[in-house]
């Protein structure tokens, strides 16, 4: 079983791993610290690492001055809405391909994957003009729609790889016992599919929350999710680092937590099942 691990080896690799892990995480930590500083301290040289005057006023200011909650709500509606709709469309499709495959199933799957390869800039112009014509620019519904279509191939693929792992024998046993397709779906398939559904949901929430091409190009104020809202800090006036940090910390905190829960599925989902 386990290779012999000498104490020395454990100590060296532990120190190394913690050092590099901390180094990679540091920019996030530094941002969180800055969010609790005053603007002057955030800007100060030499910087103070822990012994500064801790304050939460930046968080209050961000909400007061820029209506943070509106943008957070936009993010929730856009990421949540697009993911749920994508799931509703994808579940029947993936179920059908996993359990009643035909000769063309593989071609259809690869074709769906290939739509994800299309760079968004390739269709930026027509989408922008269509949205302008139909008054969908800076609207939540417009962003829900486009993010839903953008992530649909990944959702179908993930679900397909999960559904395919459900053993066929169980379904056949259910059929022999006279279960209809409806009952089969509710009592046999659903309980076995829930883990796969949950991780698909989670990964796509993360992708939609952080999507920053369509959201930047198609929203400006009313429908702007957090990605666009944070981008507005790129041309600020006066001292703004602490407030930028506070807004950023709020924007990434929920998704960071979800992300940590879904890291195993992340590998599988983003490699389309090629690495498990």
């Amino acid at each position, binding site marked *: 079983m386990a290779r012999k691990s000498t104490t020395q080896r454990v100590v060296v690799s532990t120190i190394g791993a*913690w050092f590099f892990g901390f180094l990679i995480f540091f920019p996030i930590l530094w941002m969180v610290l800055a969010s609790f500083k005053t603007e002057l301290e955030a800007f100060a040289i030499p910087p103070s690492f822990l012994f500064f005057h801790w304050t939460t006023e930046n968080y209050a200011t961000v909400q007061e001055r820029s209506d943070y909650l509106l943008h957070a709500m936009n993010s929730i509606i856009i990421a949540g809405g697009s993911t749920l709709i994508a799931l509703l469309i994808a579940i*029947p499709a993936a179920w059908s391909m996993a359990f009643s495959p035909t000769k063309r199933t593989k071609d259809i799957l690869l074709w769906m994957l290939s739509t994800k390869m299309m*760079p968004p800039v390739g*269709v930026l112009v027509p989408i922008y003009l269509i949205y302008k014509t139909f008054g969908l620019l800076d609207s939540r519904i417009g962003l829900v729609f486009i993010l839903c279509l953008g992530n649909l191939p990944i959702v179908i693929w993930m679900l397909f790889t999960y559904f395919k792992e459900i053993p066929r024998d169980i379904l056949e046993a259910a059929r022999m016992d006279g279960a209809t397709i409806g009952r089969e779906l509710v009592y046999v398939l659903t309980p076995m599919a829930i883990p796969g559904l949950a991780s698909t949901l989670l990964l796509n929430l993360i992708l939609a929350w952080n999507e920053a091409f369509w959201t930047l190009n198609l929203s400006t104020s009313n429908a702007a999710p957090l990605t666009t809202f944070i981008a507005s800090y790129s041309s600020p006036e006066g001292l703004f680092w602490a407030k930028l940090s506070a807004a950023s910390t709020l924007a990434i905190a929920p998704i960071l937590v979800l992300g940590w829960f879904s890291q195993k599925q992340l590998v599988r989902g983003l490699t389309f099942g090629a690495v498990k």
Partner: protein
Amino acid sequence: MATRQTQFLARSLLTPAVGLLFIWMIVPLALTLYFSTLHYSLLDPGSESFVGLENFRYFLTDPAFLASLQNTLVLVGSVLGLTILLGIPLALLLDQPVIGRNFVRLMVIAPFFVMPTVSALVWKNLLMHPVSGLFAWLAKVVGLTPVDWFNDVPLFSVILIVAWQWLPFATLILLTALQSLDEEQKEAAEMDGASAVSTFIYITLPHLARPITVVILIETIFLLTVFAEIFVTTGGGPGLQTTNIAFLIYSQALIQFDVGSASAGGLVAVVIANIVAFFLVRIVGRNLEA
């Protein structure tokens, strides 16, 4: 065996997804193709006229195209190189017996979940600011002249930020692959007196070939269209130094309002991405057989 009824059901369950994706793929692409043959400026509405391949000639011979193609290639290549060359040792390290490995793994994966606009702005201001940034302070502490990152080495600055975002992805995939490596094989090699280096070269590295390929292909697809990081830090400048293809098309479309040549550029981007996609679909498709 599937009856005709279940076949019909299966097909009707599949239709909405296929139909939507088909429309999503074909309508905008057809419009891009159509616009690319027009002289069409949003600043001058009503003056649309057919110009054939003129937009392509304009886009492809524009010095900005060659500059941005070069920037795109440098950006993609450098980020790939950095994430893989740093990701392999990092994954090997995390595969060792490490106390608190799960926590270290959380720290390593975290940057991947940070939205691009946040990572770009935090790096640009808190870390890379030429006077008050942490890097400037560190440089002064060790007696070096602080670097004015976004003026002196703008493309490299963008590369650093994007590499920081993608290093966790490469590391996590390589680590997942390492953990599926057969321990007994390595043990046997060690018993036969193989050194750590030759175990790595002859057993570990061949095992990593496939995940490395996957990392390269998937990262390439996302890196070809890096946008937000450039949008919030440099706006493509100074000059054209950080303009990649995606940003060039964006600026032609939504800053210069030149629909025709932006569409031509969009099609060029689609062609480039398709060359990459061709290889990815083949590799993933092979996996589907298993």
